[in-house]
């Protein structure tokens, strides 16, 4: 098991190197001059420009720039943006906000998605099942920003139940954006749970459980849900990894200063080190959570063993 985890982490290294280089190259290839754009209408004095360019190695060829960046990275330094703020500080500031939003979203996914899926499987073809089918189809087909604006307008503005934007009210202000962020995955979780649960309830071992005279609730939870959750947990874990990368659209609509917004701003300002730093971190989270999911899989299903 330990060896398996070690091997997986080692395999993450080339992935991290590859993605960071790709992002680096893409930022490099963007048209326009970041320093000139930074200055706006008032042209900076040439010596300031030269100093900034030198500071950020902007005159070196791509590969050299990247290697210098990597050397810096291995010393634990993520670099600075053009305003002189360390990238690590930006991450430290923004990541907790995104993490909180992701947690809220995942909780919604688990509560609503799994409950709906289980009920659908238990009462197949009932009105509830059909309702879930229709509403999940709608959620899946509507773009996220439409959903976000709709929620903001209806629940925030018209009904006034939740703050419209910002994070002034702590966790409470994350409920609406969390719901929007979770909507799509919630629909998938509901569908996945329904399929998996229906299949498990039809399995021979559930019939055996019934023949033992245990309560129906126990049959459904301990023998049905317990087995049916295995693929669902896998999906939710991977989704958490993706969410840690921030949600650019949701964070923008609800004006949440999370990591998604940070990377969006950095791309617009062509701040190479910031973009690369954050994206590499996103990739790391994604890989990490997938590893956690795989390990969890082995715990949930004793038939799986890693060597």
């Amino acid at each position, binding site marked *: 098991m330990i060896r398996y985890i070690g091997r997986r982490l080692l395999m993450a290294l080339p992935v991290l190197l590859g993605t960071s280089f790709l992002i680096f190259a893409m930022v490099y290839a963007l048209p326009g001059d970041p320093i000139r754009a930074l200055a706006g209408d008032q042209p900076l004095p040439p010596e300031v420009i030269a100093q900034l360019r030198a500071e950020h190695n902007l005159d070196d060829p791509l590969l050299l720039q990247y290697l210098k960046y990597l050397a810096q990275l291995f010393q634990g330094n993520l670099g600075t943006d053009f305003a002189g703020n360390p990238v690590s500080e930006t991450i430290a500031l923004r990541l907790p906000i995104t993490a909180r939003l992701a947690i809220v979203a995942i909780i919604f996914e688990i509560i609503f998605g799994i409950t709906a899926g289980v009920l659908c499987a238990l009462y197949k073809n009932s009105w509830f099942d059909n309702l879930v089918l229709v509403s999940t189809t709608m959620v899946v087909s509507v773009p996220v920003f439409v959903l976000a604006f709709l929620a903001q307008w209806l629940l925030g503005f018209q009904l006034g139940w939740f703050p419209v934007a910002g994070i002034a009210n702590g966790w409470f202000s994350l409920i609406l954006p969390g719901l929007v962020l979770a909507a799509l995955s919630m629909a998938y979780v509901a569908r996945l749970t329904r399929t998996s649960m229906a299949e498990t309830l039809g399995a*021979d*071992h559930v019939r055996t459980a019934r023949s*033992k005279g245990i*309560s*129906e609730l126990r049959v459904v939870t301990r023998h049905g849900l317990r*087995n049916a959750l295995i693929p669902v947990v896998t999906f939710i874990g991977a989704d958490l990894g993706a969410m840690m990368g921030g949600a650019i659209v949701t964070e923008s609509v609800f004006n949440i200063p999370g990591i998604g917004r940070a990377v969006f701003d950095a791309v617009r300002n062509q701040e190479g080190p910031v973009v690369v730093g954050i994206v590499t971190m996103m990739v790391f989270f994604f890989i990490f959570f997938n590893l956690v999911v795989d390990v969890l899989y082995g715990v949930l299903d*004793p038939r799986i063993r890693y060597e």
Partner: protein
Amino acid sequence: MAAPVLQIRDLRVEFRQKKDWREVVHGVSLDVGRGEVLALVGESGSGKSTIAMSIPGLLPRNGRNSGSIQLDGQELIGASPGTLRKIRGRQVAVIFQEPMRALNPVYTIGWQIREMLQAHQELSKEQARERAVELLKLVDIPEPERRVDSYPHQLSGGQRQRAMIAQALALDPQVLIADEPTTALDVTVQGEILELLHDLKGRIDASILLITHDMGVVADLADRIVVLKDGAIVEQGDAHQIFYDPQQPYTQSLLKAVLSLSLEPVAAELPAPEPAETPAFDLDHGVIEYPGGRGRKPFRAIDDVTLRLDAGQVMGLVGESGSGKSTIGRAAVGLLPLASGALRINGLDLVTADAGQLREARRQVAMVFQDAGASVNPRWPIGQAIAEPLQLHTDLDAAARDARVTELLDRVQLSRNLRNRFPHQLSGGQRQRVGIARALALQPSLLIVDEPTSALDVSVQEKVLELFAELQEEFGFACLFITHDLAVVEHVADRIAVLRHGKLVETGTTAEVLMSPQDSYTRRLIAAVPVPDPREQAQRRRQRRELLGEAS
């Protein structure tokens, strides 16, 4: 006779399909006496499982029943769910078939037995565990203290079924329903489980309701037999009467259709065939391996096996699961490479052949699978499925192919107007005929047949085997007949090769191997097959015990 434990009167079971209720059990009445083993016998669709599942109220959700089922005087039909729940497990327990699927894979067997105990009794975790260990001991699982913490997949098939039985016996039920308890098991394992059930019969108080299609199992265990057909009782009586003096024509035909190991000398020994110059199938010190994972040794499925099959001969490849019999079949059609040794099909060495030669060789070899319905494209009408090999390997035009398909349908005795049907619209026997027709389309010189009848009812199996024998005689193809069923082999094969763990145990003519087996494994294999004859089976049981005593 004392009052029966279980009294079923005029039981009717209906299933809802769309809006209609369709009755599948039509007023069945039967009694199960105390300590008695009653066998419910019948082909698929006879309603035997449905009747049994009505007792603990375990019908599928779209089913309902009426009539009367009395357990020790208590009426079960119409009983509240709470009442039925208390009866399940405690008074009526069930042993299901295929323990791999009937046990929950994510819990240890100890956990599952404990759950049963704690559902009905106030027991601490430790007490329940102790009782679980005792139960595992009762069903002869080695090292019960350790095994109690094993997951189902960590046990062998036989041990899993023992665990299943232990769970069913946990609360000393009055009625034990055994639903095809040995069907998914290997022959020797089946023998062991039957032995256990036989032994338990004397040690526990439960009456056993045995549901099976295997007349050998019935002969081995049953005191009384109820024969069912299409949801109604055809005949019932004590085991000897049903086996030796069946009154109803259906019972007679059912018993006649059962293939059994006759183990009687063949009247006239076939003249030894002239050794043909080039054998149809010639495996020379063949080794076949499945690649192991990273850093693990490859798994050797076939280990130094030499087999030779002359043109026009039928060789039965016999063995239990994991013996490598199907691996040889797959290698013969070129689906698996040899790690070493040589494999010649009609003289062509598959190891050294080039792509063109292989193509030609494949034309000469065809395969019939266990479930023909699953091995042809479900979206193609069967006519197209049969024509496909013709399209791939011949220059026949559409009209000629059509004519050939018609001819093949005639040969396998399928009606011509079935050609536009889809596989799921056919019965199991019809599908198997489609599989045979397709395999014969190119007139192969070698046919690989993998468990062609094991999914079929006995009467259908009999007809398919008859057809196979006819076609073999007519077309004269050589055949590797892969099966675990010795009775089937006895009926179709000229020669038998017995495999075990990838090694060839014994080979010879059918009569030689079955009548005077040289190897002790072959002897045990033959002894483990239950024969549908109570007296002979009792005698074989004694012989088998002696054999096992010898082996240990």
